[in-house]
Structure formats: C-alpha cells, structure tokens
C-alpha cells in the first residue's frame, strides 16, 4: 500500500485489479445504477491514490479497507441525494447486471465466502436482517429506519446489534 500511495501507477493498477470488482459490486448493490456506482468507485480509488485516506494494517486487510472506503462514499452519495432513485439490484436491475465471468481459484473461494455470509444473513430472524440490510446496503440511518418501520430507535439499534452478534457466531462457528 505504501507503494501505491507513494505514487507508483503499476502498484495502483494491481490494487484496482484485485479489489475493483468487489468495490464496484458493493457500490452497485447499494445504488442500483451502474453509472453512479462507477463514479463512486472512481472517486474512492482516486482518494486512495491521492493518499487522502491512509491504510492502517492493524485495522484489517487491504480488501476490507478498500470496501470500507467505498461503503462510506456510497452512503455519502445516498444521503446527499445524488442517487435520486433508490433502486436495489433486484429483479428490475437484472438486465444491467453482468456477472463476473472469470472464475479463478481466488474468485471461487470468494464466491464460497459470499454464499456463507449470505446464508448467515438469511439465517437471522427477519426483523434483524431487515434493519441490517436497510442500514448497510440501503445507507439509511437508524432514525430513518425507525421511521420506516414505525418502531423506536432503541429497538432498531438493538436489532442491529443482536443481528450482528448472531452473524458473528454463525461465521466463526461459535456455539451460543
């Protein structure tokens, strides 16, 4: 990462090749529009290139760091109403979706990991997975979610916390 932020375009290209797909997939999942997702990913990677955000090894992997930046920027875009039509990449967005074709060993492992995380999310009680999805993928604040679901803010926060705790147990194989 020091090489990338030190100004080596080739190192930056490697960083993009490794994480650009996941970054775009996340942004697209959140905004539902390819053009907006492209802008967000471009801004996120340029902020890395221009060293506006520093990688700290102790805070996790490079991939987690990159995806965290993309997530924050996408939430900013959603909250600034840059995305006028909040459309999920659901059935109506399928015509825009182009599945990644390459299925290397690394990609296969990532898909397996994705299946595990989705399974952990789906295993949650509906009220917990809903607040988590609205917050993480929808970019809504806890107060917005409370209004949408007509429930106290404390309940929303509690369900977020409980849901994350259950997901953690599921993912780490820890017995409750």
């Amino acid at each position: 990462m020091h090489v990338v932020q030190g100004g080596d375009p080739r190192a930056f290209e490697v960083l993009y090749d490794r994480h650009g797909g996941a970054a775009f997939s996340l942004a697209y999942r959140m905004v539902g529009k390819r053009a907006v997702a492209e802008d967000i990913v471009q801004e996120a990677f340029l902020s890395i290139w221009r060293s506006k955000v520093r990688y700290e090894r102790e805070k996790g992997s490079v991939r987690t760091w990159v995806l965290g930046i993309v997530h924050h920027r996408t939430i900013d875009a959603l909250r600034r109403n840059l995305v006028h039509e909040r459309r999920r990449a659901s059935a109506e967005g399928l015509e825009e979706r182009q599945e990644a074709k390459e299925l290397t060993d690394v990609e296969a492992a990532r898909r397996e990991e994705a299946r595990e995380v989705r399974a952990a999310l789906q295993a949650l009680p509906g009220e917990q997975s809903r607040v988590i999805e609205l917050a993480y993928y929808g970019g809504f604040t806890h107060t917005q979610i409370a209004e949408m679901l007509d429930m106290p803010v404390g309940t929303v926060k509690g369900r977020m916390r409980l849901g994350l705790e259950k997901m953690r147990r599921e993912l780490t194989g820890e017995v409750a």
Partner: protein
Amino acid sequence: MSRDHEQYEENVGAYLLGALTELESEVFERHVASCPICRQDFEHLRVAAEALPRAVEPVEPPASLKKSLMEVVNAEAKQRSQAAAPARKRFWQRPFPRLSPAFAAGMACLLLVAGVGIGVGVANIGGGNGKTVTALVDRSAAPMGTATLKVSDNHGVMKVQGMPQPGDNRVYEVWVHRGDKFVPAGALFGVSRDGSGSAAIPSDLKGVDTVAVTREAQGGADQPSEQPVMSFKLA
C-alpha cells in the same frame, strides 16, 4: 459500568453498519477511544459487519472504469515526476498558443500567480482514433480540481472532478482557440455536489490548439470574462 458507557453501548451495531450520522459517528469514535468495554464490543462485532460487503453478488465493472482511472493516475504520476525533475523546463517557460489580448492577459495572470501551486498536466494518453488530454488547472481557483478531455473524431468529451461550484447563477463554459481568438465551444456545464461534471463539446476540434474553461453567467458568454480555471493543450 458508567452512564456514559451505557449511553453509547447500544450504538456499536449502528456504527458498524454505517447507520449513525456523521456527527454521531464522531462522538462514538471519541467514546470508543477511551472506553475499553465498547472497544472490545466493537472488535467483537466487527467480524460480522466486515463480512457484509462480501455477501454481494459479483458484478463486472466496465473496462472503461479502469481505463479512465488509469488515465488520471498515469497523468498525475507524470506530473509528479516532472515536478520532481528540476532540470526540465517549467510550464511557464514553454511556448503558449497565441491568444486574444484580453484572454491572453487572463491566461498570463493564471500562470503568474505568485506562490500559488498550479496543476500542470499535459499528458496525451492512448492513441489510434482518440487521445485523452489532462487539464492544466489553476490551483488558486480549483485546489482539488482535475479534468480530462477525450478527443476522438475531432469531437471532445470533458470530465471534471473535485471542482468548486461555479457560483450562484453561473456555469462553467468551454472555449476553443481557433485562428487567433477564443470562441465559445457550445458547451456549458455545472458540477454536482462532489465537484464532478462532464460536457460534450459539439464544436469541431480540428485545428484547435487549446481548449479552456471559464466561469460565466447562466446562459454563457460570447467572450471569456475571466481568466480560465483550466485549459487543455491539444497541439
């Protein structure tokens, strides 16, 4: 367990999911920095939150995204290396295209702003049927601004990022240097809140050596009224 801690304890999940407002997040971060219990809780639940982006169905990004990113990155890397090479001729020592007197004065001002960093970037990227040129940006007017102009078949598409708003009832206007004067290129544009924007240039760019951008009143102007905030050297 302090009351202070109880107040923030329930925010851990919301923080990890990005569901707090910016201000709430800052307050929470300050608390976590000084509260070992919340810190432990945060680390404990982080595993789940950080897994969430990995649950997303993979979608292939367009090749144009990498291409446009690398154009900017390569151009900026070139600028950095040029800036680090003192033996090279400075930008203002290089010949500049002939300008109309009023606009030339503006361009001169742009280049002579003492002590102000001026983003210098004239990089032609790509080949074949098209080329992409990086803008020279007046850092006093647009400290974070960057821009590229992609020219193909004598027409151009400009993309800007990090630009300030042009001002109330004002727009950015594109000019082309043809003959010995700047004329409107037929393109006005604004920028979004994040400073990004784009403009297609309908003018034929054949024979044009410089494209410039100024801030003008809504509707555009016949002549540039101020020094350019950026320019592209095509020839």
